[in-house]
C-alpha cells in the first residue's frame, strides 16, 4: 500500500515533467507540422542557461530569464532558417532539426564542457515537504508539480480565451483562410515556435537540477517526448497532458510491480518451466522492461488508433 501511494506521487511528478517538455513540442508539431528533433536540445539549453544565470543572480531570476533566452533563440531559428527550409518540404525541415540538435549538443560541449555542471536545487526548496510512510517528499518535486499545473492552465487559457489563441487555433486547420483574413500567418508560426521553445526551456530550468545537467541530457530525453506527443495525439493539448501522466504512471508502476507473464499464467493454473517455449520471455519480470513499455504503447497506438488518444490530425 505504502509503495503504491508513494509511486503514485512519483508517477505524477515524472509525468508532469514529461508534460512540460512535450507540451511545447505538441504546439510546434501540430501547428506547423514540424517534427522538431531539436526540441529536447532547447530543454538542455534551458537547463544550461539557468545554471549560468543562477550562478550570477540566483535561481528565481533564472526561472524567468532562461526560458526567455530559449524563446528568443527559437524565434531566430524560425525566422532565419526554418522558414527558408520549409519551402523545400517537411523532410528538409525534419533533417534541418536533426542537424540543429547535433550542432547544439556540440555547442553546449564547447561552451560548458563535457562534465555535468553543478546546477542545484535552490536551498529553500531543498528539503522534505512532507513524509509519506517515512519517505521524503522533496519540496522541489512539489514545486515541479505546481509549475507544470500552472503551465497547463496558462496554455489552456491562452489558446482558448485570447485572440492570439483563436488565431493559432484557426491557423491550425485553415491557414489560407486565416491569411486571407489579414493575419500574418508567418508571424503566428514564429510565435508558436518561440512559445514552444520557451516551454522546453522552462522544462530545462525545472528538470535540469531535478535530474542532471550534462551534454547528453537532450539525447536521453528526446525519444520519450516524441512518444508522449504521438501517443497523446497531434493537435491536442489535453491528449498530451493525459499521455504524459499515463507514461509517468506506467513507467513508475512497472518498476514496483514485480510480476511477469509467468505469474499471470500461474493464476490461470498454467505453470511455466524452463522447458516451456519462450520461457525466457515469459519469466522476464516487468521492471526489467518497464522503461521500454512507452515504446510498446507507441507502436500499439499507431496500429490501433493512428491519431493517438485525442488527436485531431494525422501523424
Amino acid at each position: 500500500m505504502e509503495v503504491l501511494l508513494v509511486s503514485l506521487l512519483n508517477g505524477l511528478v515524472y509525468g508532469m515533467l514529461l508534460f512540460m517538455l512535450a507540451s511545447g513540442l505538441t504546439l510546434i508539431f501540430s501547428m506547423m507540422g514540424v517534427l522538431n528533433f531539436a526540441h529536447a536540445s532547447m530543454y538542455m539549453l534551458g537547463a544550461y542557461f539557468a545554471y549560468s544565470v543562477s550562478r550570477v543572480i540566483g535561481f528565481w531570476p533564472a526561472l524567468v530569464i532562461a526560458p526567455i533566452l530559449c524563446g528568443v533563440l527559437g524565434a531566430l531559428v524560425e525566422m532565419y532558417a526554418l522558414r527558408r527550409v520549409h519551402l523545400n518540404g517537411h523532410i528538409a525541415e525534419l533533417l534541418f532539426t536533426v542537424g540543429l540538435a547535433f550542432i547544439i549538443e556540440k555547442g553546449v560541449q564547447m561552451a560548458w564542457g563535457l562534465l555535468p555542471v553543478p546546477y542545484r536545487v535552490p536551498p529553500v526548496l531543498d528539503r522534505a515537504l512532507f513524509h509519506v510512510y517515512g519517505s521524503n517528499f522533496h519540496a522541489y518535486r512539489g514545486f515541479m508539480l505546481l509549475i507544470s499545473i500552472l503551465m497547463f492552465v496558462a496554455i489552456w487559457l491562452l489558446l482558448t480565451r485570447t485572440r492570439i489563441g483563436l488565431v493559432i487555433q484557426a491557423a491550425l486547420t485553415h491557414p489560407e483562410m486565416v491569411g486571407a483574413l489579414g493575419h500574418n500567418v508567418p508571424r503566428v508560426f514564429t510565435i508558436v515556435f518561440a512559445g514552444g521553445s520557451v516551454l522546453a526551456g522552462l522544462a530545462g530550468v525545472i528538470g535540469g537540477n531535478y535530474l542532471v545537467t550534462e551534454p547528453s541530457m537532450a539525447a536521453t530525453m528526446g525519444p520519450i517526448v516524441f512518444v508522449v506527443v504521438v501517443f497523446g495525439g497531434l493537435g491536442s493539448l489535453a491528449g498530451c497532458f493525459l499521455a504524459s501522466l499515463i507514461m509517468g504512471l506506467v513507467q513508475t508502476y512497472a518498476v514496483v510491480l514485480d510480476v511477469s507473464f509467468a505469474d499471470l499464467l500461474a493464476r490461470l493454473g498454467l505453470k511455466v518451466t524452463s522447458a516451456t517455449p519462450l520461457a525466457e520471455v515469459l519469466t522476464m519480470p516487468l521492471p526489467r522492461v518497464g522503461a521500454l513499455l512507452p515504446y510498446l504503447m507507441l507502436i500499439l497506438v499507431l496500429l490501433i488508433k493512428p491519431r493517438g488518444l485525442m488527436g485531431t490530425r494525422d501523424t
Partner: protein
Amino acid sequence: MLQLKRLIALLLVVVIALWTGTGTVTAQQGGTIKIMYTDPLSGPFAQVGDQNLQQFKYILDYINGRGGAVGRKFEIVSFDNKSQPSEALLALKAATDQNMPIIMQCSGSNIAAALIEGVDKHNERNPNNRIVYVNCGAVATELTNEKCSYWHFRMDAHVGMKAETMVRALPKEVTKVYLLNQDYLFGQSVQRDVKTFLGKLRPDVKVVGDELIPLGKVKDFSPYVTKIKASGAQALLTGNWGPDMTLLIKSGMDSGLDMRYYTMYAHLGGGATAIGPAGNGKVRSVMAFHENIAVETGKTDTEGWTRQFRSQHDFDFYAGGFRTIFEFLQAAMNKAGSTDPIKFAAALEGLTITDMLGHQVTMRKADHQILSEYFVGVFTKGVKYDSEKTGLGWKTEATVLPKDLDQPNTCNMKRPAA
C-alpha cells in the same frame, strides 16, 4: 602558373610515396613508439575519452621525461570509436597499417571482445607485423577467461575482483543488500559475481532486491528508490555507470534514502558533481586510485605529481592505473630491449613492478590479468583533495591486497611458437 601547380602536386605525391614507403622502417627503428588509443571522443560518452586523453598526455610527459623506453618516446594517436565495435576495428586497421606496436582501449567490454578477436586474426595472418592490445578498462570477467588471448593484456581489475572487493568492504552490521545493475554483459556479470562472493564470504547477508534495468533508458529513478526503501536494504550495490549511476544516486539523495551506496564508477569524472554534498559519508566506490591515497600513505612525490595536474586542469586526476600501464610498457620494452610486440609481450608476462604508490603490481602470466592493490573509497568532507570543487573527496575505507584478489581463471591461452 599551371605548370608550377602541377610540379608541386607531383612533388607532393613523391614525398607522400617516400614517406609512407619508409614509414615501416621508421616506426620500427626510430622515432616515437606509437600507440593507437580508441574510445568515444564524440557523442554522449565523449567525456570519458576526452578526460582519459588529457591524463594520458600528462602521464606521457612524465614517462618520456624519464627516457621513454629503449631510448624512444611514447606517442598516443587517438581515434574516435563512437562506442561502436566496428569503428574500433577501423582504428585497429589504421594501427596495423602504420605498424604501430600497440592499440589501447578502455570503455566497453563488447568493444574489447571485438578487438581481441580482431587482434588475434591479424597476428595470425601477419607474423611479421604483430600488435598488442592493452586493455585499460573493459572489465567483463570473460575477457581474461573464456575469451582470453596472448595478445591482450588487461590493466584493470575485472568485474569478479571488483565484486569481491565490494563484498569484503561490507561492514558486519550490513546484512541486507539490494543489487541493481544494467541489463547487458557487464551489468549481468556484476549481479552474478556479487552474489557468488556474498555466498562465499558473507553467507549472513541477504539479497533483498535483485534488479536489472535497461541500459540508459531510465530517466526517473524515484520508483526504484521507493522500492529499495521498502525492501529494508542497508546497502545498495551497483556497477552502474554514466547517467544510470548519477541519476540513481541523485534520486536516492533527494528522497532521503539513508543507506550505503557501493558503486564501481562514482569516482570518475562527473560523479562527484552529481552526488553533491548530500552524499557525505554515504557513497563508496571501488577503485585503483584516488588522489588522497598519496596523502594517507605519505607519498609526497606522488602527491605533488597529481597536484600539478589539478593546477593545470579543471578536473581531478583519477587515472593512477594509467600511469602503471606505461610503467609496465616501459619496463617490459627495456627488459626485452625492443619495441617489437612479440618480444615485449613475452617480457610483460609475469612482470612485477612497483607503482607510484609503492605497491607491487604483477601481470599474471596465465591470463594476462593485472593483480594490484584495490581500494574502497568513501565520498566525504574533510579530505585534503576534494573532487570537482564540491568540497568533498575520496577517503580510503578499505584496502584489498593482490593476494586476496588472486582469483582463479579458466583461461586456456594459445601462445605463439617461439
